[in-house]
C-alpha cells in the first residue's frame, strides 16, 4: 500500500526527499503554520460565497473559522495583533472577489476529495486531490484555484503549473459529466486585500497529460529514495519545519 499521489505530496517530494519521508511517510507532526491556516479559512469563506452568493454569510464562515482556538493557539509569538489584521484582510478578500468576479459565477462543484485509481506505476495506487471550485463563468466551465501570495506570480509559471491540470484531469475522471473548459488562478495579494492576478488559460488536455506523465515518472523514479536536498534547507529551521528531525536523523 503506497501513500496517495497528490499535488501536495508530489511538491514535497520534489522539494526534498528527506522532508517528504518525514512529512508524508513517517507523519512527523509539525506545528500548523499561520499562512496555511489563513489559506484554509479563506477557502472556507470563498467556497461559501460561491455557493450562497451572500458576502455576509461567507464572511461569517471566515470569521468563525479564524476565531477558533486552533487559530488563537498558533505560534503568534509577539505578533498577536496580526491575527486581527489578517482577519480584516480575509474579510476584504472575500468581498472584493465576490464583487469583481464571484457574482457572475455559478458554482458547480468543489472542496470535494476526488480519487482516481492508477495502475500504470508500482508506487501509485491512487491519485487524489481536492479542487477549490468548478464554476460556470461566461458560459464556460472554469476550474478555479485560490492562492494567497506576498509576491506576483509570473504568468508563465501559472501557465505551466501542474496543479490545475491535475485537478481538471481528476474532475473529468471522476465526474464524467463535467468537461473543464478553462483553468483559472486567482491570486490574492497579501497585505492589500485586493486580487493581484487572475490568470485564465484554456484547458489543453494534451499539455495536461504531458505534465501528469512527468509527475508520475518523477514520483515512480524517486519514491523510496529519500535523499536530502541541501538547497531546500539552506536556511535551516526558517524554511523547513522538519529541520530538527532531519538533523537528528542524519547525525
Amino acid at each position: 500500500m503506497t501513500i496517495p499521489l497528490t499535488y501536495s505530496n508530489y511538491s514535497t517530494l520534489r522539494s526534498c526527499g528527506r522532508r517528504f519521508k518525514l512529512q508524508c511517510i513517517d507523519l512527523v507532526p509539525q506545528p500548523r503554520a499561520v499562512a496555511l491556516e489563513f489559506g484554509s479559512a479563506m477557502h472556507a469563506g470563498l467556497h461559501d460565497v460561491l455557493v450562497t452568493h451572500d458576502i455576509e454569510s461567507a464572511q461569517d464562515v471566515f470569521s468563525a473559522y479564524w476565531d477558533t482556538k486552533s487559530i488563537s493557539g498558533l505560534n503568534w509569538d509577539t505578533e498577536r495583533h496580526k491575527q486581527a489584521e489578517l482577519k480584516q484582510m480575509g474579510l476584504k478578500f472575500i468581498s472584493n472577489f465576490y464583487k469583481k468576479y464571484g457574482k457572475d459565477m455559478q458554482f458547480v462543484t468543489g472542496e470535494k476529495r476526488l480519487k482516481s485509481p492508477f495502475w500504470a506505476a508500482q508506487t501509485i495506487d491512487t491519485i487524489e486531490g481536492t479542487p477549490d471550485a468548478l464554476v460556470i463563468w461566461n458560459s464556460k466551465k472554469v476550474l478555479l484555484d485560490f492562492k494567497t501570495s506576498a509576491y506576483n506570480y509570473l504568468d508563465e509559471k501559472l501557465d505551466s503549473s501542474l496543479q490545475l491540470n491535475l485537478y481538471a484531469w481528476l474532475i473529468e475522471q471522476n465526474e464524467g459529466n463535467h468537461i473543464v473548459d478553462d483553468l483559472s488562478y486567482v491570486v490574492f495579494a497579501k497585505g492589500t486585500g485586493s486580487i493581484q492576478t487572475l490568470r485564465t488559460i484554456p484547458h489543453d488536455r494534451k499539455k495536461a497529460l504531458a505534465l501528469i506523465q512527468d509527475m508520475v515518472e518523477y514520483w515512480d523514479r524517486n519514491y523510496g529514495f529519500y535523499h536530502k536536498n541541501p538547497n531546500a534547507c539552506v536556511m535551516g529551521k526558517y524554511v523547513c519545519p522538519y529541520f530538527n528531525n532531519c538533523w537528528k536523523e542524519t547525525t
Partner: protein
Amino acid sequence: MNKTIEQVTIEADKKIPREEVSTRDSGYGSTFSYLTAHYVVARMNEVFGNCGWDSETVEMRQVGGGDPGKPTAYVAKVRINAIVSTGDGGYMKVVKEGYGFGADKPKRDGTCNNPHEFAVKEAESDAFKRAARQFGMSLGLALYSKEQENVEEPTKILTSNSQPTNPSITITNAVPLQPIAKDADRSGLNKKITAMSKVVIAKRLKTLDELKSDMKSKYNVDSTMALSDAQAGELYGTLETLANGH
C-alpha cells in the same frame, strides 16, 4: 495573577463603543478618529490587569521651535511591556513600541504659555496610543480600518409600541422591547450555528449529512429553526468545541 494569552486576545479584540471615539478635523478636508489616552489606559488595565503592564518613554526629542513664547514640537517613542500567562504555569513578556508627535497650539496672538509642556505630553500620549493599538481592536486598531467594522454602533431600538415619530432615534443603553431582542438574538444564534457548521465541514471533521443526523438523533428536529433557545445554544457550543478541537 496575569491573564492568559487567550483571555488577553479576546478582551483586546472587543469592539470599541462608538461613544468612546472622538473625532477632529484632520486639516486636509477629512475627519480623524481617535481615542483619548485616558480611555486607552483604562482599556489596558481591563485587558492586562492593573499590574499586568507598564510603559516607558524611551525617547523624547525636540524637533522644532522652542524659542521663548513660541510654539514647539516633540517626537516621542514609548514602549509598552505586558506580561501574559502562557497557561502552563509560565509567563511571556509582550513588547510593543510606537512613535508619536506633539506640537503646542499657539494662542490667538501667536504666543504660547508652556510650549514644551503641552508638546511633550501630546507626543508621549500619541506614542503610547500608537504602541497600544498593536495589542488589538479595542486598543485603537479598529480605527485604522476605513469601514471601522470593529467600532460598535449604539443599539437602535423603538421605545414604544407605536410607530416612532423619528425612525432614526437612537438611545444608547436603553432596554429593548423583549420580543424584538429575542428574535434578533435567535436569528443571530442561528447564523452563528450555520457558520460554525460550515467551519466543521470545511475542516473535514464531519459532513453535512453527519451533522444533520446528529441533530436529528439528539433533538429530534430537522432544522435549527425548530430548536428551543437552550437547545440552539447547546448545539452551537458543541459545534464550537468540535471546531476548536482541530
